[in-house]
């Protein structure tokens, strides 16, 4: 008789940990050597791996579990583990009937604590759970799923990283590449090389998340793009959540990072053939590492070069990057665009997409900025130079306002039939939700873009503002 329905072990529940465990179980059942095993067989297979190849090092997951118990030798660890999970599967362990708080199903519920579950609180302290219960009460399938979680996460800096997504193909892909990828557990275990939780190449959550997006864009295009064959960059609504956690000893912790669908879609657009050559150097030039303070980015070779060595993408992509971090944290990129575009070609169309879709800026605001920039660039070289200097040096909103009033006056005196700015357009140019500095920066960006477009070489005196420079470790 089946001890448990396979679907209840693998169907998404909405809980990222239970779902990661479910994806691991589903992936293991796809393996020819494992497909005939029942769930207890899989538990035995994985328990053997944890005990004999990982040296039972699961302390960041399960505290005082049968496997991590130092008083037990390997044989006893395996026996005790199997006895425990058997008692859960055949429901002889203490239980009570109720609704599972993960799956919502009415079933016999078993207690989940720090020995068999992640971040569920200690049962030692009686008021951690409602009604003085000694843990979370969950169905047997959830207890079993959690046992497989270590195979579906990776070591990311000082904690563990679990990526989940609303796009189930993406969420499944994250786990599958840990299991069946080139360095996946199932490939290394046969060679006796699997020594523990997979290690990310990145120690920084933002880098790890965007590297995972890169991997999705490369390897599972049909899940990401609406029309992948036509190379139409219309990403499906895919969001990612990174749970950066540890359940270790007295310092359990979790930090959540959310990469929204709009940021995912924008990043996918930036990685497309149309924009990659422009976007990549912009991001690459912003990597920072305190050990390589004297290194400079070489756009031609796509390397960071210091007096001692030259570092390729594989090396420098592990450094901190304010562009990726700001994208992830919802902070503006406009000052960075402004600094970059003064010396590099960068299409305003991409910035416009960023402003409208990520910053949710009104299209009419963007259009007005473009109109004013067009007027500035239509004038003589000396006026353009002065415009850039005045806008860039403006420290108070009054200075920008005075300058715009002067432009309106110049436009009128120049005999233009249309006013540069109508009274009902002022609210679009200076919306309540956008700072005047951002509008000023966007004006400068639009001016530079038009100078690039017209191939006008003007000896501008652009001064970098302190606000752009962000201290990084």
């Amino acid at each position, binding site marked *: 008789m089946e001890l448990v329905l396979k679907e209840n072990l693998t169907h998404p529940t909405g*809980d990222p940990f239970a779902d990661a465990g479910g994806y691991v179980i589903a992936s293991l059942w796809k393996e020819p050597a494992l497909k005939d095993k029942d769930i207890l067989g899989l538990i035995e297979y994985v328990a053997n791996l944890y005990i004999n190849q990982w040296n039972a090092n699961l302390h960041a997951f399960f505290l005082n579990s049968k496997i991590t118990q130092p008083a037990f030798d390997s044989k006893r660890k395996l026996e005790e583990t199997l006895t425990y999970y058997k008692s859960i599967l055949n429901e002889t362990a203490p239980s009570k009937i109720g609704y599972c708080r993960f799956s919502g199903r009415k079933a016999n519920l078993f207690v989940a604590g720090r020995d068999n579950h992640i971040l569920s609180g200690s049962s030692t302290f009686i008021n951690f759970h409602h009604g003085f219960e000694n843990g979370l009460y969950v169905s047997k399938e959830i207890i079993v799923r959690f046992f497989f979680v270590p195979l579906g996460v990776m070591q990311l800096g000082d904690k563990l990283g679990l990526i989940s*997504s609303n796009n189930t193909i993406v969420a499944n892909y994250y786990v599958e590449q840990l299991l069946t990828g080139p360095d996946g557990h199932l490939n290394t275990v046969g060679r006796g090389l699997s020594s523990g939780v997979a290690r990310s190449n990145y120690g920084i959550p933002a880098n790890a998340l965007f590297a995972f997006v890169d991997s999705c864009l490369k390897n599972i295009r049909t899940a990401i793009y609406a029309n992948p064959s036509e190379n139409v960059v219309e990403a499906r609504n895919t969001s990612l959540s990174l749970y950066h956690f540890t359940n270790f000893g007295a310092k359990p912790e*979790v930090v959540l990072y959310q990469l929204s669908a709009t940021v995912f879609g924008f990043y996918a657009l930036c990685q497309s053939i149309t924009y990659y050559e422009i976007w990549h150097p912009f991001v690459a030039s912003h990597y920072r590492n305190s050990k390589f303070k004297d290194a400079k980015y070489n756009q031609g070779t796509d390397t960071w070069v210091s007096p001692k060595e030259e570092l390729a993408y594989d090396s420098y992509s592990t450094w901190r990057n304010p562009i990726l971090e700001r994208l992830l944290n919802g902070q503006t990129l406009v000052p960075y665009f402004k600094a970059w575009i003064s010396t590099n070609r960068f299409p305003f169309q991409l910035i416009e997409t960023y402003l409208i879709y990520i910053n949710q800026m009104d299209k009419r605001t963007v259009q007005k900025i473009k109109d004013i920039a067009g007027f500035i660039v239509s004038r003589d070289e000396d006026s353009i130079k002065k415009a850039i200097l005045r806008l860039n040096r403006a420290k108070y909103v009054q200075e920008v306002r005075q300058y715009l009033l002067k432009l309106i006056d110049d436009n009128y005196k120049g005999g233009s039939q249309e006013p540069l700015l109508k009274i009902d357009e002022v609210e679009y140019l200076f919306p309540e939700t956008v700072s005047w500095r951002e509008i000023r920066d966007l004006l400068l960006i639009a001016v530079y873009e038009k100078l690039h477009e017209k191939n006008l070489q003007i000896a501008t005196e652009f001064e970098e503002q302190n606000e752009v420079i962000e201290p990084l470790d």
Partner: protein
Amino acid sequence: MQVHVIDLSSWTASFRYPNLISGVQPTLEVPPVSTVLGLLNAAAGQYLHHQKLEIGYYFQFDAKAVDLESIYQIDSTNGRATNNAKSNIIRREFLFNTRLRIYLTDPKLADYFRQPYYSLVLGRMNDLATVEQITTLDLPEVAYASRLAGQVIPFRENYLAGQIQALPKYFTDTFPRQNVGTEPYSVISHLTFVKANLPAIHDKNLGKAGTDIYLHQLDFSEHDQAV
């Protein structure tokens, strides 16, 4: 469609992830359905035994921050609390300057908010909320929502972008309380808009271009509310 709208506000709010207990308490960016039904109970001053219920809501906040909070961990012997309590500090995320708008089709439920029986809180007891106004509006219905934000939407069959979490719809009035109707939801922050093949009502007064509100059709008839 005629709906009864209750506007609430609070300085702070905190909606914990139901299954993250240890160390740090992050907050969801939108309350689960169960929290809003709990507010109805607090306003009514009694546990409401719903059979079928139509409800929608929208939640927004100005900022998110982390607070340090003292907790007291009570020791136990054989499952019974002792007099030994150990203090500790945890980090709790909270939302600042929040607004919750509830849409109800049953006027009787909306009336409870005219004179709430118990204090209304958006999270914990210090997250005290105020009823700003209660109105009745005629809102247009849309066959396909194009601007969903600030709400939770059932994940199954929709797979909408957002934070995916298993969240309860309600709790029993038993001791200990039991979650009812837990299922996966997309938690969609008010900061991002999502399209869906879902019917909704359109509230033009939420956000610059209005927001579509999904009305949850809750059916508790299959659930035993007294497990």
